[in-house]
């Protein structure tokens, strides 16, 4: 029995499947802690980009991990775990937005500044006080511009540039064809640039 399990582990290891994911599928609680520690910042950031309110992101963060504990046995090990996890979080966030305000999924550009939410939570690791101030200002402006994009644009940008996901992985998370991801990526970058240029008097400053 133990030998069969170890052969299975070696085989799954060769397929590149995360050991913690396999352990969690077998019901190991320590594996859940390991995965949570590894993904907590990424999942929280992704949820915050989607729903924009820290309190909502915290609720969804909890729901996501409870859902992981519930559904992990149905996770197909031939799939990418990151894509599965982010898709799970995304579905919960979309359900939440639908329940809260059905029209929020069809968001258009918003003019209101929301610096009290995300921007105020942005830490900075720049060295000098002046550089720190400049970097914070730039990052803040970009974060606000990002927040003002429609949901479908925000998520594709955060998955590509913050989560560093491949286009194919993003397509898995969003359950859309690769071509759609590319066109959405193009439109979101174009719109982000437009907002930044409008804010900076025609000059791009990220």
């Amino acid at each position, binding site marked *: 029995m133990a030998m069969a399990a170890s052969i299975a582990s070696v085989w799954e290891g060769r397929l590149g499947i995360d050991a913690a994911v396999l352990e969690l599928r077998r019901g190991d609680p320590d594996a*859940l802690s390991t995965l949570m520690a590894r993904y907590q910042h990424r999942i929280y950031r992704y949820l915050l980009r989607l729903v924009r309110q820290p309190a909502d992101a915290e609720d969804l963060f909890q729901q996501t991990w*409870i859902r992981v504990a519930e559904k992990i046995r149905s996770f197909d090990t031939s799939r990418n775990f990151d894509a599965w996890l982010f898709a799970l979080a995304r579905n919960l966030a979309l359900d939440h937005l639908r329940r809260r305000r059905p029209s929020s999924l069809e968001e258009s550009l918003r003019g209101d500044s929301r610096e009290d939410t995300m921007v105020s939570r942005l830490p*900075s690791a720049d060295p000098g006080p002046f550089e720190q101030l400049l970097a914070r200002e730039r990052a803040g402006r970009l974060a606000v511009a990002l927040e003002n994009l429609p949901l479908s644009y925000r998520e594709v940008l955060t998955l590509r540039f913050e989560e560093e996901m491949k286009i194919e992985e993003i397509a898995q998370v969003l359950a859309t064809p690769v071509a759609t991801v*590319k066109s959405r*990526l193009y439109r979101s*970058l174009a719109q982000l640039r437009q907002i930044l240029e409008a804010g900076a008097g025609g000059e791009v400053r990220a």
Partner: protein
Amino acid sequence: MSRLDKHAEIREQLALFVAGALTADAESRVALHLATCADCSAELEGWQLITGGLRRLPTPQPPAALFERTRVLAMAQLAEHREQRRNRIVLMLLILFSWAVTLAGWPIFRFAAGGLFSLLDVNFRRTWLLFVVFSVGTWLAGGSAAVLLSLGRRHERRLA
């Protein structure tokens, strides 16, 4: 293709070029053009500023207590699922065992009590039918009691 058209075509692709979303062919075409075109290179810098900025956006920190709170909840969920799975397996095994004992026990008992011919007796066949009806009735009553008990336990868990 005129030089102007070529510029327009390349510029259309610059955003996807910095996003790493072009095919290998298209990427090398753009790279080749950029090596000789100062205008498109300047345009590229604009896109690079944006994508570089996005990559460097600081990661919002979740509140310190959130991790532990979530971990406790998720662990409880995991334990509950594990328990449910184990209970299902135990229940199925018990049912199989009980049916096997019930079905095999009666003829064995008759055989032991009355010999081989008692199994062919007309009265035995009638008794056998009654026995089946009685067993099914008992099993249904037992099953209903088990369902009611599990519903009650779930309700208690929810209240807790």
